[in-house]
């Protein structure tokens, strides 16, 4: 498959542009919070996790200590560790690629990769989104830091709306059947309930814990439904497309692949 014809690459590039542009907002806010240009760039280059970066400058801008800023940033970054575990199994970067993969393991690259069923597509999606966002996020952080507030509020351009749409679009294909939809609704509600009571970033961890608990307690020897995810960590297929389709059809015929909406309807909603 040609690089630009890959659906995962298309998603990765789209999300890179939408997220990367938002770096303008970080750059501008960071210098107005009292960080200098190099400190701002250090956060985008080395810390590279949007939520953690905004939390760090938010605490500093609000008059908080460096320790408080670091703690908020660390708390928000915990989910990247969970993503790392998933990406290690799904994308399986080897040798020198592994430390690079770790740096670009964020919400968007993880979401792009886990939205794909084919192991090669997962890999393409992960790297396209991860590297694409890294480059554009840093470029636009620099633009924002240099231009300061001359650009105006990026919200004016609807960039925060782009993020909302991107995450919904990544979630959407997974909502086939009652069970995945029910999990999404429960986790969305858990998030909303948690927002007023815990520091920002933590509600996402609450939702992750709720989702993990649902997965743990509804586990069955032969799970049904959730078709794309039945074997997310199956050994990656290599180049040969023929073997891939064969393996797929074999799994189908033995019924291990679950099935789609109809097989999960009703009977295993949590």
């Amino acid at each position: 498959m040609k690089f630009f014809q890959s659906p995962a690459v298309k998603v990765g590039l789209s999300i890179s542009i939408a997220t990367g542009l938002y770096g303008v907002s970080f750059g501008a806010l960071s210098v107005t919070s009292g960080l200098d240009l190099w400190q701002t760039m250090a956060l985008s280059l080395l810390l590279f996790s949007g939520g953690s970066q905004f939390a760090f400058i938010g605490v500093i801008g609000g008059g908080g200590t460096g320790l408080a800023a670091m703690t908020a940033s660390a708390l928000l970054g915990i989910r990247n560790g969970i993503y790392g575990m998933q990406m290690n199994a799904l994308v399986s970067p080897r040798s020198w690629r592994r430390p690079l993969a770790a740096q670009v393991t964020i919400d968007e690259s993880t979401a792009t990769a886990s939205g794909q069923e084919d192991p090669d597509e997962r890999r393409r999606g992960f790297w396209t989104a991860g590297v694409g966002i890294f480059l554009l996020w840093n470029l636009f952080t620099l633009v924002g830091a240099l231009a300061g507030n001359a650009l105006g509020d990026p919200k004016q351009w609807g960039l925060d709306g782009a993020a909302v749409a991107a995450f919904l679009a990544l979630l959407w294909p997974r909502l086939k059947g009652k069970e995945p939809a029910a999990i999404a609704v429960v986790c969305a509600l858990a998030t909303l309930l948690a927002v007023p009571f815990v520091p920002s970033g933590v509600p996402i961890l609450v939702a992750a814990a709720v989702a993990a608990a649902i997965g743990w307690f509804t586990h069955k020897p032969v799970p049904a439904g959730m078709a794309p995810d039945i074997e997310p960590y199956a050994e990656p297929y290599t180049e040969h497309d023929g073997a891939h389709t064969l393996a797929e059809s074999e799994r189908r015929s033995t019924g291990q692949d679950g099935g789609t909406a109809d097989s999960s309807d009703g009977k295993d909603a949590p």
Partner: protein
Amino acid sequence: MSLWIWILLACAISYLTKLAGYLVPAKWMKNQRMSRIAATMTIGLLASLTVVNTFSTGQQLVFDARLGALLAAAVALLLRAPFLVVVIAGAAAAALLRLAGWG
């Protein structure tokens, strides 16, 4: 100068957190129960990221132009629009609502 120390510490923690995930043996993730949890967790995280980005500003829940972005994206998805079109629909809805003076 001391701010630099906290910045570099925050960067180190961030990277080590990410790397720690990769040091968990992939084998541990390769059984049916972990696969099931990975599947439910992906749905849970995406649902959570969607609502956090739509409704939260810090620790406050707010209804603003981002709600319009969510609805516009949902309509685009129902019409089976490609990913980029969905993202543009979300951005355009938020931008237009703000232009009209809401949120």
